[in-house]
């Protein structure tokens, strides 16, 4: 998929336009993105930022369609407001979550899938601030139906990469997968007959086939989040989630064998790179 991004405010630069045309003619679906900064390169109001971003993205999309009618497109945004106390981009702000959700709604209104950045944080370590900032943005993204997002594991406005955080982000994604399934409603899950069968206290569901059949499907089993008594927790070394994540990282790095590219594909890619290098650098 080809990516392209506007220069806010209101400019689809030459490079962006050329890239869109090249991708479209080569038959690649194209991601058209806006990365405006409310308060600086976009209005400080969220609504104004959405209006401006929409204009920029739609312009790029019109160009793509002119270059190649019906080429696939993705509506994308990476909008972070400016914190006016310092000039920094407020990556972990709840406003980012709101804009992401709103952006998804606008994209879907036009019938496009929507791309956003993976939930971000301003925190400098994988701490509670990181947890709540990413968690809040994540739930908003998921409920709004964001179709595609990039870059887990980031800290400090995506200026730092943390393997521990990547593993923790993966856990959050697992929880979100369960969230997306919602409440399954059918004869079996309503379990009316079972409820009548079990009857009032001291009736139990623990030893029923229904429970065996359904509890695993209905519950996300955390890969990392700890659930235990305080005494047990202390006896196991009082480890917090970051330490648990670190152990997981070590294990993965030690044991995981990535699947390499097929040899022919690797060779072909090298040929392409060499050809481009020769054309651009002359050697």
């Amino acid at each position, binding site marked *: 998929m080809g990516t392209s991004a506007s220069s806010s405010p209101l400019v689809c630069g030459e490079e962006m336009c050329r890239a869109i045309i090249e991708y479209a003619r080569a038959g690649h679906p194209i991601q058209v993105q806006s990365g405006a900064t409310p308060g600086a390169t976009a209005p400080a109001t969220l609504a104004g930022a959405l209006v401006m971003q929409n204009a920029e993205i739609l312009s790029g999309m019109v160009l793509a369609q002119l270059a190649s009618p019906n080429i696939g497109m993705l509506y994308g945004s990476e909008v972070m407001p400016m914190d006016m*106390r310092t000039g920094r981009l407020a990556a972990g702000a709840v406003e980012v979550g709101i804009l992401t959700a709103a952006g998804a709604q606008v994209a879907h209104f036009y019938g496009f899938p929507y791309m956003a950045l993976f939930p971000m944080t301003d925190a400098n370590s994988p701490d509670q601030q990181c947890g709540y900032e990413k968690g809040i943005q994540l739930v908003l993204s998921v409920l709004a139906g964001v179709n595609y997002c990039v870059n887990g594991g980031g800290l400090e406005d995506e200026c730092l990469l943390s393997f521990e955080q990547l593993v923790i982000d993966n856990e959050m994604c697992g929880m979100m997968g369960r969230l997306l399934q919602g409440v399954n409603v059918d004869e079996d899950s309503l379990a009316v007959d079972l409820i009548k069968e079990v009857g009032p206290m001291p009736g139990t569901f623990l030893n029923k086939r229904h429970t065996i059949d359904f509890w695993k499907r209905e519950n996300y089993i955390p890969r990392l989040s700890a659930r235990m008594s305080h005494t047990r927790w202390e006896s196991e070394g009082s480890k917090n989630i970051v330490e648990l994540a670190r152990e997981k990282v070590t294990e993965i790095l030690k044991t995981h064998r990535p699947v390499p590219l097929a040899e022919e594909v690797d060779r072909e890619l090298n040929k392409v790179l060499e050809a481009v290098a020769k054309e651009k650098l002359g050697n």
Partner: protein
Amino acid sequence: MWTSSGRESGLGSRYIPAERGAIVEQNEILDGLRQAVIDGQREVVERWANEAIQKGLDPLLAIEEGLRKGLDVVGGSFRRGEFFLPELLMAAEAAKAASAILEKELERTGAQTPASRVMVIGTVAGDIHDIGKTLVAVLFKVAGFSVIDLGVNVPAERFVEAVKEYKPDILGLSSLLTTTAKGQKVVIDGLEEAGVRRQVKVMVGGGAITRDWADEIGADGYGEDAAEAVETGEKLVGLL
């Protein structure tokens, strides 16, 4: 008759009023200039500047007691978290507009324009990001520097030319992208080749830049953010 040197009124010795009425009028104009800067109202401050010229007020006094004092108040409010970047920018723009009017008057009368530290700033070649650079420029202006902003995507040769032309105390180079950061080194090397490296303090900054990088390429200073940049800059030119 008012005969004091003006020091009693705390206005400094440059303006010697002929009569009490003139003092009151002068204070009114200076207050007007100061407040309009604080409020970030460019048209109002320009009117006060023209009023100052009409009433024969010393333009230097107007700049220092009116505009400069206004910017000092704004800077203090910003540091205390009462004012934010937009207020800062509007105040700086208002002060700049009035400054232009008053400095023209100074030139016309052949008086000396106030000496201030000079900074040339820009975003390096291949990079069009300008917000950080613009913020740094504003904060340096508020701190009393005269700032020449070369804009974005500035070729290295242009930076070198600007150092020769404006003879700045500080040259600021901004880069947001890791792919354009080496442009900062290209400029520093260009200054060496042109034999003007020692004439200026070079500061680098931007999202892609770290203190280590600044040291590696031989920059004189680095700021994590705009506020730190100003503090570093003031230290470099001996103001702190």
